[in-house]
């Protein structure tokens, strides 16, 4: 097992997890979105690193340079980036509307307000147990 060959992946996984942590631990809705961005960007890095070939160049065909990196991950990630920004925009517009409706973008406060109005049940965003099966 070539540990050195995997170190890069592990670094990117660390970044992913930091983003994931921001996403699920922060109560501020804007920060959640930022966390989502960081999470997704790091996943993109992981993807792109999968397509890298040592000593390769960008997959733009030129004369006499035979080793190109794998173009397919690039294409996938281009699409994924666009999807990511679409999600971000929609999420942020929801945040703005939530702010108008509740006067706050803190999850805890929103939760309190909902409880006060409806006596409803727990509406927090627990994500625990998510990967019990991974």
């Amino acid at each position, binding site marked *: 097992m070539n540990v050195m060959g995997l170190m890069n992946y592990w670094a990117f996984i660390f970044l992913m997890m930091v983003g994931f942590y921001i996403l699920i631990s922060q109560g501020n809705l804007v920060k959640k979105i930022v966390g989502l961005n960081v999470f997704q960007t790091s996943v993109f890095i992981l993807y792109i690193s999968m397509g890298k070939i040592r000593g390769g160049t960008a997959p733009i065909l030129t004369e006499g340079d035979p080793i190109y990196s794998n173009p397919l991950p690039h*294409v996938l990630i281009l699409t994924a*980036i666009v999807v990511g920004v679409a999600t971000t925009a929609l999420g942020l517009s929801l945040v703005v509307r939530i702010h108008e409706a509740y006067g706050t973008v803190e999850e805890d406060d929103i939760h309190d307000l909902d409880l006060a109005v409806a006596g409803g049940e727990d509406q927090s965003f627990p994500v625990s147990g998510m990967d019990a099966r991974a």
Partner: protein
Amino acid sequence: MLAITALALVRLRNLFAVAMLAGIYSLLSAGLFTTLDAVDVAFTEAAVGAGISTILVLGTLALVGHEQKKARRSSVIPLVVVVLTGSILVYGTLDMPPYGDPANPAHHHVAPHYLEESEHEIGIPNVVTSVLASYRGYDTLGETTVIFTAMVGVLLLMGGLRKRENSGETDAETRESEDASGSGPVPTHGGSGTDPPKADGKKTHGEGDAHGG
């Protein structure tokens, strides 16, 4: 660098700083993409992550305020989840082909076809564009639709299409909405407190704050 930026994001509570740092994170990763030979991706990430996303976040912050409260919740459970997920991922990499190895299976199935055939099948040098627009053009159509969906969604939620076009002027607003609906006045939206009273006194436009930030 990326790691430091990311970790700083966790701790920072000034959201403007968070937004800027997130932009920096994107820029840094764009740089990384370049070194990984993904120039197109780098270009896009720079434009999207450091550009559009940051503008959107700043625009939002201008509307919702930029101080984050200290959370009441415990951060232990998320931490456990994250560590667990991360370890599983690391476990998953153990059988992954090593980084940068040309012998990886990923490089020997479909990718060679793109690299070798696209020149005479498509006839343009940028293989990424060939794949994007032709081999996997349908994905790109989907991507375009996603963007379009986002616009539909944002305008649906923010109501920016015809309402509030001339912000603050109520008569204009009614005129606009009549024009839009064509069937009498717009029913009041929302039941239990969806629309709080508009504070007309403060006419700060979003772009002003975004610019200032």
